[in-house]
């Protein structure tokens, strides 16, 4: 019985490898290379004890705790313990994104395109495709974990030990794997690939926010958040393996759940039953733009709400962050009340400047996704129907680009708005709305350049459209970690986001905004020209 359920898993594994090989290789090399490169650079950045003490002080502030987790390193600080604090959460985010993307494409993605139906028609066990994907993810995470461990061994950070190196490598692998297995489980519940992606990111986003709030307020509670386990490794100190065990157990549970559900359900169906549709189109469904909005309304509302919740979660800790007196009662006497308020406000502003980058990336993801959807809709043949009617190329291109641009603006606004609202509720002397508006105004033009660049790829070289993700990812990396890993200025300015100068700590620079807007217009012109003269992708 069991044997027939998993028949031909081996062949499917080889097929998966053939299909995903390049993608897996890029992730492996990319992540391991990034990790090792930063590790190698670390000694140069934090070589002296003074440098270590300074960065430790920064990492202890609530703002940094909210980004990187509780600071648990004990005196005397070593390069290795600082590295463990700074890198673990960030790398875990990358691992999780990788796992979600690959797991969705290999399960629901295959089902949506009908490939799975073909596969299942052969003498392939009912659970074999699921198991093959699980094996693929397991090997991928394990190999990356090994590479991380090996990279750390090579880097020989002062204060590191072999157990700690492998603990970090395996811990990151396990946290990625856990979310991979969770995605397999969600793929059985949702009905389509995009629904699965949404559900996975919703849970991921939720746990990110939960761990941030618990980290800042009650670090012990972070144990209740699976995403937070990665912070509890205590590498190079007590070297705890318990979190890794927890992740493996929960991941295994998810895999078993996925197998049970997959065994029960019909091919192509989910647990969420599809509703009946409308008999006739409503008057509002009348062109490419409304059509796109009609398709995306669920996704877009989810992004707006998600961004607002994330912003609000950040905002809700502003009182903790912006209270110097709490951590150091002497300060109040030293500075005097009004100076203290000003100092507190500056800290909050600094924090907003750092967080803005998270909100910006969160807003860029749906915008770029919509932009690239133009090509995937072509490939699915959906747009052929549209183009057979009296609808011009320009109109369709403009709809997708327009919706992408507006999405970028609205999702960022929701995030900034959520931050403002929550900050306003918890702070005694809240930061005024104008400050938040500046953030929005400062980042939007830079984001538009990136959306427009994605549009150019779509218009001219649709095969290379994934470069847009690479660029966005680099933008996130260079700004989230840039200063901490001492990335040179030119490297941070490889994306337009790098030109936005720490608003709201510094004033909004309109000259940057203007050239970004000018560049956007130029790129959009180029994109629309290209899109009108190329073959439709198929």
């Amino acid at each position, binding site marked *: 019985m069991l044997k027939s359920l998993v028949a031909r898993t081996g062949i499917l594994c080889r097929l998966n490898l053939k299909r995903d090989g390049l993608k897996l290789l890029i992730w492996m090399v990319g992540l391991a290379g990034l990790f090792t490169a930063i590790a190698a650079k670390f000694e140069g950045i934090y070589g002296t004890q003074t440098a270590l003490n300074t960065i430790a002080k920064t990492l202890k502030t609530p703002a940094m705790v909210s980004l990187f987790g509780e600071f648990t390193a004990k005196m005397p600080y070593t390069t290795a313990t600082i590295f463990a604090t700074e890198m673990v959460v960030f790398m875990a985010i990358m691992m999780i994104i990788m796992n979600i993307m690959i797991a969705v494409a290999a399960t629901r993605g295959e089902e949506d395109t009908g490939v799975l139906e073909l596969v299942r028609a052969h003498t392939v066990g009912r659970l074999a495709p699921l198991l093959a994907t699980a094996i693929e993810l397991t090997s991928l995470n394990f190999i990356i974990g090994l590479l991380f461990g090996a990279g750390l061994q090579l880097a020989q950070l002062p204060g590191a030990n072999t157990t700690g190196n492998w603990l970090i490598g395996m811990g990151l692998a396990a946290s990625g794997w856990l979310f991979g297995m969770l995605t397999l489980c969600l793929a059985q519940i949702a*009905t*389509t690939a995009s629904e699965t992606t949404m559900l996975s990111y919703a849970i991921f986003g939720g746990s990110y926010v939960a761990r941030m709030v618990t980290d800042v307020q009650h670090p012990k509670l972070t144990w209740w958040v699976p995403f937070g386990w990665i912070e509890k490794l205590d590498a190079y100190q007590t070297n705890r393996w318990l979190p890794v065990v927890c992740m493996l157990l929960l991941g295994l549970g998810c895999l078993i759940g996925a197998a049970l559900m997959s065994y029960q359900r019909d091919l192509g169906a989910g647990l969420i039953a*599809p*509703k*009946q*549709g*409308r*008999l*006739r*189109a*409503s008057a509002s*469904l*009348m*062109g490419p733009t409304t*059509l796109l909005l*009609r*398709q995306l309304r669920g996704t877009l509302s989810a992004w707006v709400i998600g961004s607002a919740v994330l912003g609000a979660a950040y905002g809700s800790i502003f009182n903790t962050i912006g209270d110097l007196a709490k951590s150091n009662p002497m300060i109040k006497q030293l500075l005097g009340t009004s100076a203290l308020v000003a100092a507190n406000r500056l800290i909050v502003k600094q924090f907003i400047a750092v967080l803005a980058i998270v909100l910006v990336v969160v807003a860029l993801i749906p915008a770029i996704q919509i932009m690239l959807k133009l090509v995937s809709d072509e490939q*699915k*043949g*959906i747009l*052929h*129907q*549209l*183009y*057979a*009617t*009296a*609808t*011009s190329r320009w109109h369709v291109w403009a709809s997708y680009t327009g919706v992408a641009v507006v999405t970028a603006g609205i999702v960022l606004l929701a995030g900034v708005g959520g931050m403002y609202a929550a900050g306003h509720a918890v702070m005694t002397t809240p930061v005024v709305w104008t400050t938040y508006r500046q953030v929005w105004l400062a980042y939007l033009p830079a984001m538009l350049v990136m959306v427009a660049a994605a549009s150019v790829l779509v218009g001219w070289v649709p095969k290379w459209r994934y470069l847009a993700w690479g660029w966005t990812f680099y933008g996130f990396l260079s700004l989230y970690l840039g200063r901490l890993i001492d990335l040179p200025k030119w490297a941070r300015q490889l994306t337009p986001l790098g030109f936005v100068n720490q608003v709201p700590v510094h004033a909004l620079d309109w000259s940057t905004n203007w050239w970004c807007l000018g560049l956007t217009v130029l790129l959009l012109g180029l994109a629309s020209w290209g899109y009108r*003269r*190329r*073959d*439709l992708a*198929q």
Partner: protein
Amino acid sequence: MTQATPVLKISHLQKRFGKFNALTDIDFAIYPGEVFGFIGPNGAGKSTTIRILLGLLKANGGTATIFGQDVWQHSVAIHQRLAYVPGDVNLWPNLSGGEIIDLLLKLNGDQHTAKTDALIKAFSLDPRKKARTYSKGNRQKVALIAAFSTDADFYIFDEPTSGLDPLNEQLFQTQVLQLKQAGKSVLLSSHILSEVEKMCDRIGIIREGTIVETGTLADMRHLTRTTIDVQTVQSLAHVAELPGVHGLTVKAGQNHVSFAVDADQLTAVMQYLSAQQLVAITSTPPTLEDLFMRYYTAATPDRK
């Protein structure tokens, strides 16, 4: 043949995908009120031609015009008066069939009319289902209903019945005949030869990216062989030596054979046969299938 201005005119159309020449030389025209059958083996380039006509692909050479306008430059104006149904209908997964029909009509400036409702009923489509849950045939019905309720002048169908059951296929044929009677032009690409034979006024055969033959079925019959099954009193041993006789098979002894004969040698062969004193003879005109086989299996020119 009417010498009115053609609705569709294609000359020397060429299309390359990288190094691969998908279309090397496409040439044909369709006149008002005509149903044109477009047939050819898999991968011959039918869908590619149609996609060029729709402005989805850009030709590398030659010209194609619909209503006298260039298909690439003026696609929007052309599409106002055109309807299209592909063989693989892909729809917006979370829209219902009813919504999609209305949307496609609206995009062409048409309305959901009583005719639309009648078509939905005739094709027995449940318009409330989400497109994701439709079967292949049902997705095709959605596109067909939208196309037939559009008031267009030119209809393009690319294997429109590949997923339909015989009842709905019948309905499709009736609808196309109605279009024809209303003076509309139709381009029908299909692998169902009986359908093409029944409905089309003229036929174009495409192979390896080149049009190898166009004309009416009668014209084409003339170009090919008639099958003859004959029984005579005297021996037919020498039939095989006559010019234009192919594929002789002996049915019973020397006096009952069947063979195929080239149209231009038919008279000579018949004279010879009657000289052998006929007992029974049946002659079968070539079906489209025979025609088709002949063109399909001919030597392959290099397309690289």
